[in-house]
């Protein structure tokens, strides 16, 4: 198991290098730093001096891959590629356009993001699986049919509608919770109820339908018939046999997103003015702050790879037959 994990970790390195190269090409080769500077300063005011100053301020004034002016190892370290790309492996993200340290910002914003993402994740898992089990319990009845219709209808509604409609209904019309905002500590709860609720409701349709298909596939297998033949009640069959055995496909889809919860949700955080990583990303996108977007891409891919490894480990926990080697 340890050897397996070590191999997976080693395998992660080329993938991260690939991500790194891809983002570097996207951000520096497709568009030269000159283009970025011109866009940031505004085409009209972009004199060569202004562009040069912009680049020096942000450390974009170095050559791309090889610095001929320097000697020794500095030939390679005094370059854009080393500075902006390779340093990320040491989790040094540099500064955003407003001069703040990106790493510091990310550490501060992780908390609010998790405060929304974690309850959302747990609640939607519980609600969707319960709903799917309910539909499976009543399979091939009108309840199942209309439940599936409801799922399809719910997944056809734009997530923007859930957020805008929910905010309007709960916060404006019923005035139950504040429309948006955030407070540190326990005070945050009253700001978090609505976004969590809306995210859970918005996700039910597609996930409940997906779990239902998984359960239905499992329930048609022979061991389930055997369990029923032994005289087990339908509920015991569902929870003790079907749910346990359906865990593998469920884990495949679910565990990989757990680390990504750190990244927060772009839409929900920006609508509810939560100072998390999601709204940080959105602000960076709108302000065209490439340094922040680059940092988030890198962190996102690291977390994705962590998620893949966690998925493998979770298999061994859920199914004793699975051995990692």
């Amino acid at each position, binding site marked *: 198991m340890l050897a397996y994990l070590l191999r997976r970790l080693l395998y992660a390195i080329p993938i991260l290098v690939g991500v790194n190269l891809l983002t570097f090409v996207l951000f520096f080769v497709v568009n030269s730093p000159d283009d*970025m500077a011109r866009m940031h300063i505004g085409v009209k005011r972009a004199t060569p001096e202004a562009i040069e100053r912009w680049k020096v301020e942000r450390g974009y004034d170095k050559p791309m891959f090889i610095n001929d002016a320097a000697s020794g190892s500095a030939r390679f370290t005094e370059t854009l590629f080393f500075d902006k790309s390779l340093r990320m492996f040491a989790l040094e993200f540099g500064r955003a356009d407003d001069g703040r340290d990106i790493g510091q910002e990310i550490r501060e914003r992780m908390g609010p993001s998790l405060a929304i993402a974690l309850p959302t994740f747990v609640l939607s898992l519980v609600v969707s699986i319960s709903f799917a089990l309910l539909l499976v319990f009543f399979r091939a009845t009108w309840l199942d049919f209309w439940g599936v219709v409801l799922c*399809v209808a719910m997944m056809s509604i734009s997530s923007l509608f859930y957020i*805008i409609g929910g905010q309007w209904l709960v916060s404006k019309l019923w005035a139950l919770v504040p429309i948006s905002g955030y407070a540190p500590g326990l005070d945050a709860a009253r700001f978090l109820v609505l976004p969590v609720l809306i995210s859970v409701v918005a996700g039910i349709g597609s996930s409940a339908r997906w779990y239902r298909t998984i359960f239905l596939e499992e329930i048609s297998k022979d061991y389930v018939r055997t369990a029923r033949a032994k005289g087990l009640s339908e509920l015991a069959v569902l929870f003790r046999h079907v749910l346990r055995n359906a865990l593998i496909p469920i884990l495949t889809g679910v565990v990989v997103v757990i680390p990504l919860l750190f990244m927060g949700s772009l839409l929900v955080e920006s609508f509810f003015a939560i100072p998390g990583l999601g709204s940080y990303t959105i602000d960076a996108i709108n302000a065209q702050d490439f340094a922040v977007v680059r940092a988030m891409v890198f962190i*996102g891919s690291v977390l994705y790879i962590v998620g893949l490894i966690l998925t493998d480990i979770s298999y061994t926990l859920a199914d004793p037959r699975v051995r990692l080697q």
Partner: protein
Amino acid sequence: MSMPMATTFGLQPVLLWTDALLFLLIGLGVLAALHARVQAPLREAWRKVGRRPAGMAAATVLLAFIAVGVLDSLHYRPLLAAVEAPKAIGERSAAVYSTEVLSVLDAMLAPLRLQTEKTYSAPFAWTLYQREPMETADGRQVRGYPRLAHGGAHLGEAPAAARAGDLVAGLAKALGQAAAAWLGIFLALATVVWRGSGHGWGEVATALLCGRTVLAWRAALVTLGVLLVVLALCVELAPRYHVLGTDKVGQDVLYLALKSVRTALVIGTLTTLVMMPFAVALGIAAGYLGGWVDDAVQYVYTVLNAIPGVLLIAAAVLMMQVVIDTHPEWFDTAAERSDARLLALCFILGITSWTGLARLLRGETLKLRELEYVQAARAFGVGTPAILRRHILPNLMHIVLIALVMDFSGLVLAEAVLSYVGIGVDPSTISFGTMINMARAELAREPMVWWSLAAAFVFMFVLVLAANLFADVVRDAFDPRRA
């Protein structure tokens, strides 16, 4: 990035890139349909789709949306009236065309497009939604609701009383027209089904109405009836009223919603179309050839998967925006520029979404290459390209088709979110996302403005719901595991 063609009839046809690809897709669809007619298994699968009421109803709705999208994809540049000065006989006038690119749909909806108001007005209103300072007959300044320039302008001095009668009359007329059109279509359909069925015409017509036909024609007819009523109502009332109100700058919301349909269709279909060649080629190569090719392809899609989709899209869109902004000389008109951005968005969405399809195709190819008939072909010395073409590719097409229809609804929803975030279509392109983006703060206004958001969400909901239902039926019919 457009291909202006020969000038005719005082207008210059313009073929935008997305138009060309959309027509290519329709052409491929027609070819596939002709192919399916002669192939028994394919014909049977499509008949399975037709037997499901949900499939027929969804297909009817989708066809209506596609019709709107196609009409909106026939673009042209109108001749500028100002330069039509009289010329000597025989002299060819140097025609000057407007830089504004219009579509056939624009021409059909000319009243809606041109009759703009000053700002917000509610559906079927005859006044603006907000009070404004205005002058009474005796010269005093008061704050009141000014009359609209176009909506309800025919109602005269007592609009409240006149409107009720006008609406009822319009409704009755529209229902009559819809009923007549529906009856015509029903008679035509009954005759088509009757020919060669061996039953009496009356029998066939009753079977159609009672839903006893093999294909679920009744579901299609009912859906068509609803669509016809909506259409007739719009045709009847939209020239006189703003049926769905007007937005902040006074544009008709119904017009915006109809124009959004094309953007949604383009994103939903072209994304899959442009990524399909990559996904098919790489998926098959990885699955069939194995070895280092497999490793390389898997590496590429793991890298692409590792980057969170939204961020990759954001990064790519930001970069593309810089490229487009730094090269204004590439585009003749604003429409071409926003079209280029739309197409680029399709490519970017395609890059992030081809991995799923490629992985499915790779897995299926791995399974297929071990089957007896493929091994037999190899033993007979058939070359790899021939095996791929004759034995592998045709057996993968159902996966591609299922991916095409399954991805559609997700892409339409994604477009709205991306445009809302600011990394979607060009802000000048009318789409559901830009509509929602413009109306984002309207529910918080006092008094609340709900119609722009409602129109965008309802149109999107109907389109996505139809697409989801259709996708389910198609998957059930074509996926052998679900037989």
